[in-house]
């Protein structure tokens, strides 16, 4: 389970640093899917970067643990090896590095950090083939450089492909629905739903309720000004859709 307590964090260097996360507390037990919704600038993406250890984001207070391990002191790759996975809002292009090479290098690096053996080439290829089929990804696409020349939808599907390949313990989906048409959204959601399991927790960050029609959350949290200001069941997402953040937050603040 992911446990965040009274977390505060800043973005930017020294004097320029700005506090974005302001005493955030949140628990996502294994097996549950929680959605985080909130207006622009609420700190949604910052939260995902703080949890995954991006440089430039500094934790100034509070704690965050994954299955009891303090993750805030770890390097990004150590967190990844512990099972933390972030599906990026804007997946990054890596020229000259084929998808398969990238994912296999990542997988073996994680395994090494965990003291496990490397995956054999045939096992890797078999697994990759099955997942690609499930996500309707063209095998040729996996031979191309990571995200280079991919459409928005392809990039998001590739994020899910990586997620399914790496089998993380905890997933953060950052605005995975942005830039997707309805068919791509369904495919992506199917992939995510296939990952649901009693051992795995998920944090789904989104602007819109639409994604939550396909990935049904156990809980919905509203993030505003760097804190969780409201928590409810799936119906909260519908209320936000109907009344807007102002309507719902007006009553919360």
């Amino acid at each position: 389970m992911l446990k965040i307590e009274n977390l505060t964090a800043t973005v930017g260097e020294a004097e320029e640093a700005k506090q974005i996360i302001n005493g955030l507390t949140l628990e996502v037990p294994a097996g549950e899917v929680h959605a985080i919704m909130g207006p622009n600038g609420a700190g949604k993406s910052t939260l995902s970067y703080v949890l995954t250890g991006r440089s430039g984001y500094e934790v100034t207070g509070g704690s965050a643990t994954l299955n009891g391990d303090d993750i805030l002191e770890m390097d990004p790759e150590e967190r990844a090896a512990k099972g933390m996975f972030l599906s990026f809002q804007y997946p990054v292009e890596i020229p000259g590095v084929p998808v398969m090479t990238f994912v296999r290098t990542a997988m073996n690096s994680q395994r090494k950090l965990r003291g496990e053996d490397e995956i054999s080439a045939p096992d890797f290829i078999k697994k990759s083939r099955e997942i690609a089929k499930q996500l309707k990804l063209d095998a040729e696409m996996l031979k191309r450089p990571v995200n280079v020349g991919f459409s928005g939808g392809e990039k998001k599907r590739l994020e899910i492909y990586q997620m399914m390949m790496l089998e993380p313990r905890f997933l953060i989906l950052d605005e995975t629905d942005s830039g997707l048409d309805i068919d791509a959204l369904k495919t992506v959601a199917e992939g995510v739903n296939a990952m649901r399991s009693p051992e795995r927790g998920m944090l789904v960050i989104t602007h819109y309720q639409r994604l939550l029609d396909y990935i049904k959350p156990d809980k919905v949290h509203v993030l505003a000004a760097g804190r969780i200001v409201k928590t409810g069941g799936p119906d909260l997402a519908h209320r936000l859709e109907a009344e807007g953040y102002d309507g719902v937050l007006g009553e919360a603040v």
Partner: protein
Amino acid sequence: MDCCGGTDEHEDDCTEVTVKEGIDAKTVEAAKALESENYSAGFSTEIETEYSPKGLSEDTIRFISAKKEEPEWLLEWRLAAYRRWLTMEEPTWAKVRYDPIDYQEYYYYAAPKSGAKYESIDDVPKEILETYEKLGIPLREAEVLLGVEGAAETAATAREAPRVAVDAVFDSVSVATTFRKELEKAGVIFMSISEAVREYPELVKKYLGTVVPQSDNYFATLNSAVFSDGTFVYVPKGVRCPMELSTYFRMNAENTGQFERTLIVCDEGAYVSYLEGCTAPMRDENQLHAAVVELVALDDAEIKYSTVQNWWPGDEDGKGGIYNFVTKRGDCRGPRSKISWTQVETGSAVTWKYPSCILRGDDSVGEFYSIAVTNGRQQADTGTKMIHLGKRTKSRIISKGISAGKSDNTYRGLVSINKRAEKARNFTQCDSLLIGGRCGAHTVPYVENRRADAQLEHEATTTKLSEDQLFYARQRGLGEEQAVALLVNGFVREVLQELPMEFAVEAQKLLEVSLEGSVG
């Protein structure tokens, strides 16, 4: 035109080194071994060395020539070069800085005393073989050296399983030549240039200095006067050389300027792929290195010349390290001939090197694929010249410069389209990658075009290793160093693909080692 990159910011977070999974586990182990010692090639072998008198004079040249039992014409050739050199001035146009070289402080000839010629591998001093072993780099070389016993195998089996023949240059004298018998069967001559002068004087005389004339430039003229040894290759008409030929140059004796001379001639319709790899031991004094490589491709012939260079770049403060002033040029003398240069340059303190092609024959093709890495305080000024003389000649330049640390990396290139070169074409792509904020990348492309129907394309990019890319890779589980290595490998992929397979593995390993500690 001069476009420069380089910024002032500076980040300092240190992360421990994680090992990268490259092509296979062995590579990782080898790289690890290299990383742990930082530069494991930094040692010198203790064997007795015979020197020429210190400094440069006509006497030194006579000494070298006599040692090599050279014919009179070659001595005269050397002396003529020396006299010309005395009238020349050291070039200063390259974007490199170094302390003035005192040419009288060098030894111009050093040979292992226990003998210059070896009948078999058993006769090679143990220390020399151990040097090779310690390097770790020529792993396959040990294999090849072992193969000496089986050198009686036929050329036919060699064709089935491609192998590499090695002409090992230890300081100034060639000490081990393998696979020679097989090559002889194919009619390929592959030997040290000193031997070739004795055994095939007419061939050497016919081609020596015809691509890089004595008067070419300061360092080439110096080389012509004092060249110690090097490689000679002749591939006869219509012969496809049955294996890749390889020379490992080693500089060993202290204060020995090394002056190799390589001459490769591919007769009509012939093909050869030549690999050159270099490492040198650690030194306090700067070692001067001024080689000359001449390639001649006659009608329909093709020469592929690949280099991996990782000479000692000097210590963290830039002390020591090799001065690498090389003149490499290929002459596509016959129609439809092709010369392709591929280089991976990671070493030396100062590099001044422009492997070039003279596209003389109609429809001839010249290619230049380059990866130049500078780290620490290294300086590299490298590029190519494509001289289009013949009709419908084509050239292609792909240059990838990577700068890290406080280094400076310059691409300098010339594409020249002569009046006669109708419908000539060139494509040039120069990409620079900056790692950290204290290095520099510079691109200096010159174009001289005297034809309206020429097609010239030039693309250039300068990018900084992006924080986004690094984080993305690390979020997936790659360590920082490993992420850098992967990104860099992606950046240079087009060029790596041009290298022969086993060289590509070595090159990848070298890139990683050279860029160690470059982030942060």
